[in-house]
């Protein structure tokens, strides 16, 4: 009995995923190497010494914001402004970069106008002054429509423990229509202190 030699070869195994193994191997080697690089030398000879006891504390980021002084002792007329002050203190342990923005408004007694129209005539200005007595109209600083006021980050910086006096000026446009007369606007400012990045 004779056999007939095969005229065709076996099917070769697919090569589609053979690259994975070298890649995984390389990753493992690299990670292990990196971890070894962060450890000790594994020398067998060791010496030890103790330091005095110490405490490690985490830094803190906190601020305290004082009330904004009354700004309705005087009324607004076309082209005039009123001022108020508030204090902000960095009560944490790291320097903070400050940002001030309007977070709420409420318009009342706008009997001849709309809330939007009233807010469209009010401009808020913010500057940092040395004391409340230094706060007056006409100071330079960040400004914008009341409803959209935002100094952006980095308006000013407070070192740990430091405080600042914010001078808030509210102006009524000189060309404001008389229909906004009598309106009362309540507003809130949010002061945000963010850790100064290294």
């Amino acid at each position: 009995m004779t056999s007939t030699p095969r005229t065709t070869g076996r099917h070769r195994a697919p090569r589609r995923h053979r690259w994975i193994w070298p890649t995984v191997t390389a990753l493992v080697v690299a990670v292990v190497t990196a971890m070894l690089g962060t450890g000790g030398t594994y020398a067998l000879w060791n010496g030890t010494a103790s330091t005095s006891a110490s405490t490690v504390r985490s830094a803190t980021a906190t601020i305290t914001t004082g009330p904004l002084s009354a700004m309705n002792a005087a009324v607004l007329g076309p082209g005039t402004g009123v001022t108020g002050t508030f204090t902000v203190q960095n009560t944490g342990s790291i320097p903070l970069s400050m940002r001030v923005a309007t977070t709420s408004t409420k318009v009342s007694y706008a009997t001849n106008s709309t809330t939007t129209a009233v807010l469209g005539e009010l401009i808020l200005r913010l500057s940092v002054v040395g004391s409340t007595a230094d706060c007056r109209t006409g100071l330079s600083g960040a400004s914008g429509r009341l409803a959209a006021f935002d100094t952006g980050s980095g308006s000013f910086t407070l070192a740990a423990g430091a405080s600042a006096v914010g001078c808030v000026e509210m102006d009524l446009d000189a060309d404001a229509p008389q229909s906004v007369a009598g309106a009362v606007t309540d507003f809130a400012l949010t002061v945000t202190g963010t850790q100064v990045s290294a």
Partner: protein
Amino acid sequence: MSRRLRALLAVLLTAAFVAGGSSAAWALWSATGTTASSVTIGKTGASLSGTSDMTTTFSSSVTSMTKPITLTNSGSLAGTATTTVSVVSGSSTALAQAVSVVAWPVTSTSACAASTSVGTGSVSGTWASLPSMTSKLAAGASAVWCTRSTPSSSAPASTTTNVNVNLTVTAGTWTSGVVQGGFYLNTSAATPAFTCTDHSGTYVEVAWPTSSRPKDTWYGAFVGPDASTMVGQKEQDYYGRFTLAPDQIPANIATSGPVTVTVKILDSAGNPTSTVVASGTITLFTQNNGKAVRCGA
């Protein structure tokens, strides 16, 4: 994917994982606080008072009128008060034009009397055209202007005019709207002129027209503001005239020049009534280094 490309990918992934895994966390700490306040937009407003007390009938015995007008900023904004005057349609513009006006600011209504001298900051004109009585006023504040109205000799008799004073308070581009206050000015029937006779500058005789009144009616001759100062002796219709010498005209009324003399009926107590029977002018002058008087202006 070629072998070289796969090897390169493996190296890059390794580098990214190792580098990324060794970096620090990137979160920044922050804290917030809130503060709030309120602002009020003011209003304009105006009010006017005193004009209703200015209604007057001018006559030979009422020759001027001095009354205060109070301008008030009734708004919550400081502003400037300005005024205009106008004659109501249908009333006599001629009379309004014939009444001269001088107005000046005073501290209070009580500081405005017939005897008060014209103060600084005065404006003058007629009730047909008077410059603004302008005052800067804080919110809620008032300004008092004293007005003195004097009809001219050409003012038409038996005539009425209705005058409005219009007040506006302005704050920037805002105005209060116009507030009006009105009054009437009247003139009485023309007063008869007296008959005057000269006596060489020594004295004059002033005779009033005869009438149907009882002969024992008493009359007086008056001079000065509102014809309030009696001069000479009171007389009756039996005599029918006054004799006036230069020295009988008080120095505080006049020492020289024309003097208006008004003849009024007196009541039983000897006080003047509002009834004027005649008026006219005499003139004080100097003659032979002495005081003298003559008839006419």
